[in-house]
């Protein structure tokens, strides 16, 4: 592994300084207020439409990526210019648009299906291009908030406008999550058998109205992490029996509930002028420690391969689990920008761009400690694993129309496009991603003076990804061993980066259905 940029401790400080200025442009009214707002007529409609279209087209396509929840809060109405409690996530400055007190509760049901068709491999080397084929593997993930630890895909918040110029809120949501399970004996086992990763955010938000058109906001939060990761390690990698199930050790690593939190902050500005609202926001990665999340995996188990001397590491110490581990990875920071144009009293056009800096999420590092004596190393099991991810920054672009034909009813249509957070060569069952398109429809009903209920549906389709040349190179392990573990050799560099694993060449398809429900109570 490489520890980049660790500043000399003699100076007594580390180099992880997060740049923290983001802004959010300021914003626009919550839906009921929006309808009431007087519209500017200074710019001709055609010009405004062109400007909006240009903004939407020129902005790079958006990303949500395999970890990111692109629909925090409601599906179809929320964004960086939206003055409801979801602003705690999207843009805290927009909290300043809150009128009175508000309570929001939302839940989504997110069903993901991934299909992996691995390319045949040469049974002697493990490299693609041979005669050993694999059956198609199907992975499924159903995310919903009614679980413990909480989330993902839920949102709950409460807030209030205070003394005209201030707004306060507190909210909980899950900005990052990943859930996917394959069969136990899946051909994808060396990359993923199953994963359930959640980052639950508990955030307080404050917005201040600096002028009638400019607001700023900040929302510091705590991120509670939970993780459960299962995969196999080929202990005979580089030998004559590549991907032999008898030589596969199973690593089943899980936290014991949620972990002590790391901390992050969201900050933004919101600007409003005539019929336009602009919001800009920045959501930091976990603060301190280079943005690294450290998860103590207290419920870890390692099952030695059938070829090992022992089948149960824990038998000698008389208790299970007997393996402790820690998982480390980085989370991205996110820049968000949004523009809303109130084209008519009943129609809004919205553009949202998110830049998710996934480039930091390049690997997962796992350290394990097993029983003394006949433990991990004595059974040929590694106690330090690097799982290569190799993510890249991604962009999420969405265009939305919100139409409110009646005082008690509005609907929206959104088209979202998201670039891949994973380069094609780095795609594996553990990191399936590609260019995605997502149409979404949402409706909202206002019931009486206090209650609004919104529902939405989105279908996410990923352009199928075919991995010809995978970064995962099973021959690297043997080549590195032959180079006497010389870190300067390309094979050992690949092994250090976590790329010395069975090939992930093949084709990948992903489809996701998202159904969301959000209730808003104003009081």
């Amino acid at each position: 592994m490489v520890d980049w940029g660790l500043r000399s401790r003699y100076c007594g400080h580390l180099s992880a300084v997060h740049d923290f200025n983001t802004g959010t442009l300021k914003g626009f009214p919550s839906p009921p207020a929006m309808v009431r707002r007087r519209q500017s007529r200074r710019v001709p409609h055609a010009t405004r439409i062109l400007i909006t279209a240009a903004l939407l087209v020129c902005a790079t396509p958006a990303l949500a990526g395999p970890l990111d929840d692109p629909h925090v809060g409601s599906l179809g109405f929320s964004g960086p210019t939206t003055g409801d409690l979801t602003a705690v996530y999207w843009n805290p400055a927009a909290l300043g648009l809150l009128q009175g007190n508000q309570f929001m509760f939302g839940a989504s049901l997110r069903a993901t299906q991934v299909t992996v068709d691995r390319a045949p491999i040469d049974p002697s080397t493990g490299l693609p291009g041979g005669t050993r084929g694999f059956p198609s593997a199907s992975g499924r993930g159903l995310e919903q908030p009614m679980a413990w630890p909480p989330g993902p895909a839920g949102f709950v918040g409460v807030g209030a406008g205070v003394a005209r110029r201030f707004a306060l809120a507190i909210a909980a949501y899950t900005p990052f999550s990943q859930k996917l399970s394959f069969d136990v004996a899946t051909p994808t086992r060396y990359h993923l058998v199953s994963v359930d990763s959640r980052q639950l955010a508990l955030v307080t938000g404050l917005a201040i109205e600096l002028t009638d058109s400019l607001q700023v906001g900040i929302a510091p939060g705590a991120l509670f992490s939970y993780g459960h990761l299962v995969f196999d390690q080929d202990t005979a990698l580089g030998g004559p029996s590549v991907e032999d199930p008898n030589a596969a050790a199973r690593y089943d690593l899980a936290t014991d509930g949620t972990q002590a939190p790391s901390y992050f902050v969201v900050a933004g500005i919101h600007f409003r002028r005539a019929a336009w609202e602009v919001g800009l926001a920045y959501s930091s990665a976990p603060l301190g420690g280079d943005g690294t999340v450290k998860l103590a995996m207290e419920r870890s188990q390692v099952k030695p391969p059938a070829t090992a001397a022992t089948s149960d590491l824990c038998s000698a110490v008389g208790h299970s689990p007997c393996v402790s581990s820690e998982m480390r990875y980085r989370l991205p920071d996110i820049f968000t920008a949004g523009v809303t144009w109130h084209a008519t009293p009943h129609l809004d056009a919205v553009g949202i761009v998110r830049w998710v800096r996934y480039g930091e999420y390049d690997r997962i590092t796992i350290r394990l400690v097993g029983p003394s004596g006949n433990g991990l190393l004595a059974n040929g099991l590694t106690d330090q694993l690097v799982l290569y991810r190799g993510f890249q920054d991604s962009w999420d672009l969405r265009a939305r129309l919100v139409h409110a034909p009646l005082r008690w009813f509005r609907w929206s249509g959104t088209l979202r496009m998201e670039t891949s957070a994973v380069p094609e060569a780095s795609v594996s069952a553990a990191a399936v991603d590609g260019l995605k398109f997502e149409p979404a429809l949402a409706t909202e009903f206002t019931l009486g003076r206090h209650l609004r209920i919104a529902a939405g549906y989105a279908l996410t389709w990923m352009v199928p990804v075919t991995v010809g040349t995978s970064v995962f190179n099973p021959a690297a392990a043997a080549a590195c061993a032959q180079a006497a573990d010389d870190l300067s050799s390309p094979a050992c560099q690949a092994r250090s980066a976590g790329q010395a694993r069975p090939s992930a060449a093949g084709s990948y398809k992903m489809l996701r259905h998202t159904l969301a429900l959000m209730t808003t109570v104003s009081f």
Partner: protein
Amino acid sequence: MFVRLLGTLPLVFALAGCSESPVFEYDSRPIELQRAPTASGGPDLGATLAKVASGSDTPLLVIDTGSLLSSLRRGVCPSPTPEPVAYTGDIQLLAASDTGAPLRASFRGVTLLDLCAGAVGDASTQVAGVLGGDILRNFSVAFALPRVPTPTQPTTMTIYSNLPASDSDLAADGYTVMRVSLRGSTAAATASGNGLPGPPSSRMMMRVCANPPVFSPDGTAQTCKTGEVELQASGTNLLLTLSTGHGPLVLSASAWQRLGGQVPAPLGAGEPLLYSPLTTDPIPAHWVTVSRLALVDGDSGDAWPGACAELARGRRIEWTLANQNNGGCFQPCDVSGGVALPAAAYLEIGSDLPAAVVSDASDLISNLNEDFPSGAQVDGVIGAATLAGTSFEIDYISQPQGRWVAACLPGVDRQTCWAAPRCYGLSGSGQTHMCFGLPRLGLAPNCPQ
């Protein structure tokens, strides 16, 4: 070799420490090491040695947990110019294996001293530098020190970014876990009096019981009445620094005398010199053997009875557990409030460990005590040969104290190495525990007063 540097250290760190961000590259896999001789003519079980890239050469580099600073010679020795000079440089760490010298770790942009490091072990084992605690303390570093290194079981060092398990989990998994003070940070400031920061704390101070009697749970029980815990202790309490840059156990003359040994005058006449990475010149030494050594977890607080008393208590508790089905019971001095006290973790090593006795006024002992609070006394060094047959990991990352996590290597008998994790007492009859390698046991009774 570093004694002469103490006065200049603050300036070294003020100038060189804050300029660059070091970059570390390693793969957390074992790095094969060589061993220096323990002394002239001694076996190659001494200081741990790697190689280092230096131009087209690959000279030896001593891995020393007892050195506060790292060094790498850039020119010839002896130096034509005054030394030392601090600079920002790289250590390209190479394995010292029979099959070559592959690059195994890289420490780039680190503060190094340019000086002639001299020899370790014997005069012929010249090293180009030291990988010291200032770099090692960024990691959790594991060593495996077999009694007889072979190609299939070599001496190795593994660099990890952390050691994730808790003390209790490690104890349950059979490891001896000790919380140890890291010392050294105030040495330079104290020496120079200029208030600038000194080198970081990285020396591990171990509480040790030297020459305890041989113990077997099959032997006879030791009785101990209330208040007799220190009275029943056997052996001599020592405070020692762990230094993999040394081979033998090194004791000050006064410590050796506390063990009942004789110190000849002049000390070390006609005997091999001790070559230490902490001193410029070899040190006259009187070579002896110490029968056994027990490294015991504990602190120096007023209530702490000392390493030998804790060791005796641990042995009594082990005897009780091993014999509780035959009437074994906890001795009154090991019971508080009706509940047996926990047995401290310890690692016992034997037998007839080679030791070098050096003068209390030697540069080595002076160096070790430079930063120590008045009243305390560092008695010497635990070298790599002393720990033969063990594997251990120094968790520098753990806060607020470092951790030393040790186990015996497979195939080593109890009289050579015995790792006893902390044994927590039971407070209720429904509870069970596993201690001292014994089967799971329930609550043992207390002996009558």
